[in-house]
Each structure stands twice: as structure tokens, then as C-alpha cells.
């Protein structure tokens, strides 16, 4: 007798649990508001990427066309994929001292895995992650970018 009661209990318990599960999916079925899919090309104007999304490495410049990169090469050393190349040049300061400045900060978007290591290790916080994501191009060469703008120089505040 006892085993029969347990048997029936088991059946009803299982059915209840299964119905509960069906309740959850049924709720989602009748609540289209819960849909999380982004309808991308249609919502292009309003689409907002989430905070941690990493799109591409950029070097911000201020209004005087100045950046913070000291051409130290730390980002280049830390990149696991060799996506960064630092080309520096020697410049004479007005006081007559020799100083290394950035000539080209080359970034290969096509090789980058968006690991964020370059940004974390940059001692001058010269580069950041941008949240752009429409990176498709017809020519692979276009994925190689020079991050420092032409004619830009090191920001005054950073001079040591």
C-alpha cells in the first residue's frame, strides 16, 4: 500500500514539476516583450552596445590635435597577436635635448582579438576601446590603421 502511495505521489510530483516548466516557456511564448533579439539593421539608429563591448582600439585626440602616447612601445610588447607596431622618431626639443616621439602608431584591426591588454598596460592611458562594430571592408589593407592623426603631438601636460 505504502509503495503504491509513493508511486502515485511520484507521478503527481513529476507532473507538477513538468507543468511548472511548461508554465515558464508558456509565459515567454505569450509575452513577446521579453524577446531579447536585436533587429540590427532596422534599429541601427538606436542600437546601444553594452558597456563591456570592445569594438576597436583608438587613440583619442583633444581639440589641439594632441594625444597622450609617449611612444614607449609597451602596448606593442604586450599585444599577444602582434597587432600593434610602434614607429618612433627622434626629435630635438627647444632645449636641445633628443626625445623619442611617435611617428606612426600602427594598429592591425584584422589581427586584433580585442583582449584589451594594450589598453590595460599603456602607462599613459593613451589608447581606449571604441564601441564601433561595423568593420566590414572590401580590402584587407583598410584594416590597418594609423592611430595617431597626422600632425598630432604629445599633449603638453604629459611632458616630463
Amino acid at each position, binding site marked *: 500500500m505504502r509503495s503504491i502511495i509513493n508511486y502515485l505521489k511520484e507521478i503527481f510530483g513529476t507532473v507538477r514539476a*513538468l507543468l511548472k*516548466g*511548461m508554465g515558464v*516557456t508558456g509565459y*515567454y511564448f505569450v509575452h513577446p516583450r521579453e524577446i*531579447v*533579439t536585436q533587429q540590427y539593421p532596422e534599429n541601427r539608429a538606436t542600437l546601444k552596445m553594452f558597456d563591456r563591448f570592445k569594438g576597436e582600439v583608438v587613440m583619442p585626440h583633444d581639440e589641439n590635435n594632441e594625444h597622450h602616447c609617449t611612444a614607449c612601445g609597451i602596448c606593442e610588447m604586450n599585444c599577444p597577436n602582434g597587432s600593434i607596431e610602434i614607429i618612433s622618431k627622434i626629435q630635438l626639443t627647444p632645449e636641445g635635448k633628443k626625445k623619442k616621439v611617435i611617428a606612426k602608431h600602427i594598429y592591425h584591426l584584422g589581427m586584433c582579438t580585442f583582449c584589451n591588454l594594450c589598453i590595460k598596460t599603456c602607462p599613459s592611458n593613451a589608447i581606449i576601446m571604441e564601441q564601433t562594430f561595423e568593420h566590414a571592408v572590401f580590402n584587407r589593407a583598410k584594416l590597418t590603421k594609423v592611430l595617431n592623426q597626422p600632425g598630432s603631438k604629445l599633449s603638453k601636460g604629459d611632458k616630463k
Partner: protein
Amino acid sequence: MKFNIYDLSSFTSSINQTLMENCSPFWAVTIEMVLVGIAILSFYAIVGLYLVYAERKVCAFMQCRVGPNRVGPYGFFQTIADLIKLLMKELIPIKNADKFLFNLAPFIVIIASFMALAAIPFAKGLHAIDFNIGIFYVMAVTSIGVIGILLAGWSSNNKYSLIGAMRSGAQIVSYELSVGLSLVTIVILSGSLQLSTIVEAQRDGWFLFTGHIPALIAFLVFLVAATAETNRGPFDLAEAESELTAGFHTEYSGIKFAFFFLAEYMNMFIVASIAATMFLGGWMPLHVGGWEAFNNIMDFVPPFFWYIGKTAVVIFIMMWFKWTFPRLRIDQLLTLEWKYLLPINLVNIIIMSFVVLMGWHF
């Protein structure tokens, strides 16, 4: 030619008469067979395609997605595009496969579902063959499909396929019992194996209501066992993607794969229509004995739509199962059948016989 949407038997018999007047009986029957074949073929294609679409949409909504929505409005033509793609795909020949059986298997599966479709009453008069053992016939031919699955697994020369096929064999052998016994419960209540009589007997109320408790239990058991019989989730061990790549149809490509795919959805449609016919009154509108006005309002909806609506409800429940429950392990599957469904079913048959004997049904 008279066309009455509420009673298609006059339409079909007028076609029959016209043919009989114009040619010899042999040709008349041949032409009728071809016509029925074409009708079932096109019905098969349309229903198969749109069930795939419906499944993808239902699944998407249950998982907080939107599903196909690019090809046509709301992705309505997505499955047609998929079919065209499959038609143009290469049929890859498998090394060391048994060529003859390998090519035969998809046809067996698809022919089994075709044959079942012939005996299903779609509406009043819209019924290809009305056997006096209709439900028995449908059950018999639907189980031929498993031979196709076993052959597919065996002839592919692939261990995953073989394991999938063997699982499917074990599954069908056990669940066939539950399907059969739950239908027997209703046969006891209706006193007939002929599908048209069974539908007619539900004029004053569907068996699900008139048979009350035992019919309800039989319906639930049938739903579970039928889901298992069609190899659908949560009982899709035969093709368990995560364990067996695709199970018995791993090696199939192109249109032969599409055959298996379509047959799976058609089998779902067939068991859903059996459920609708046996438990929910088939094409019979919702009638409550004695409520004349209510019954007359219900009669306004043509029988074919009643039939499609009921089938759709059952199909939806089966999809709901699939996208809610996780897949069972093979031993759990057999435990469920032999320790739970079968004993419940046997007890239920006794209850039903008792109810019928005592006249306790409505």
C-alpha cells in the same frame, strides 16, 4: 458540381459520378486515385513546410528570440527557401555504405507517413479511404516508418547512425504499446475501429469530455507516447544532436535529408490528427448535448477548420513539450514507459471498461 463546404461528400460523389459517366470504371478509379494522390502530395508538402516554419517560430518565442524574419513578411517563405537550397545540394555517396538500402530508407520513412495520411478524415466526406479498421491501419502503417530509420542507421556504415537507429528501435517497440493501449481505451468507449464512426459518435460531445477521467488519462498518456513515437524532443534520442551528431540521418545530405526532415514533421501531424480525431472529435464541431442554439452557432465553422484547429492545438502542445523539457537518458526513457505509462494504461483500460459497462459516461 455542387460544392458545400459543410458537407464535402456531395462534392466528392459528384466528381465520382462525372467520371463514371464519362469513362469506364477502371479509368474512373485510376483517375480518382491519381487525383487523391496529387491532393495528398500537395497537402503533404505545404503542411510539412509550414510545420517546420511554425516550429521555428514557436521555439524562438519560447526562447525569447524572434525566429526567421527575413525571407518574406515574418519570414513566411523561409522554409521554402530552405527547401530550394536542400534540393540543390549535392547528394554525397558514402564509402562502404549499402547503396541500395541507403537510398531506400528515406522512401520507406516517407511512404509510411503517406499511407497513414490516406485514412485520416479531414472533413465530412474528405476522407480518402474509410477502412472499417481505420485506427488499426493507421497505427500499423505509422510503425513501418521505424524500419526506414533502422535501415538508414544500418546502411550508413557509421557508428553514430547505428546507435541512433537502435535507440529509435527500442523506443518505438516500447512506446507503440502505450499508443496502442491508450487508443484501445477510446475504442472501448466508441465501440468501433472505423474512424468515420468514431467521429460521428462524438456528435454530442467529444470523447475527451464524455469519457471524463479515463479518457483524460488516456489522452495524456497518448500525448506523451505519441511524442516519443515520433522521435521528437524530449524523446529525440535517435538523433540526439549533442551525443550522436544527427543520429540515424548523419550521413544523409540534400533531398534525402529533407525527406527525413519532412517525414518527422508529417509524423507529428499524423499523430496530432489521430489525437484530434480520437479524443477531440476530429472535424466534428464543439457540441454540447441539448444546447441547440450553441450547437448551431458552432456548426457555422466549416468542419475542415475544426479539424485543422484541433490538430494545430495538439501540435502546439507537442512543440511546447519539445522546447521545455530536457532530453531523457535511454534508461529513463524505458523506465518511463515500462514502469509508469504501461501500468497506468492497463489500469485505465479496466476503469474505462467498467465505466462503459456501468454506463457512467455521458
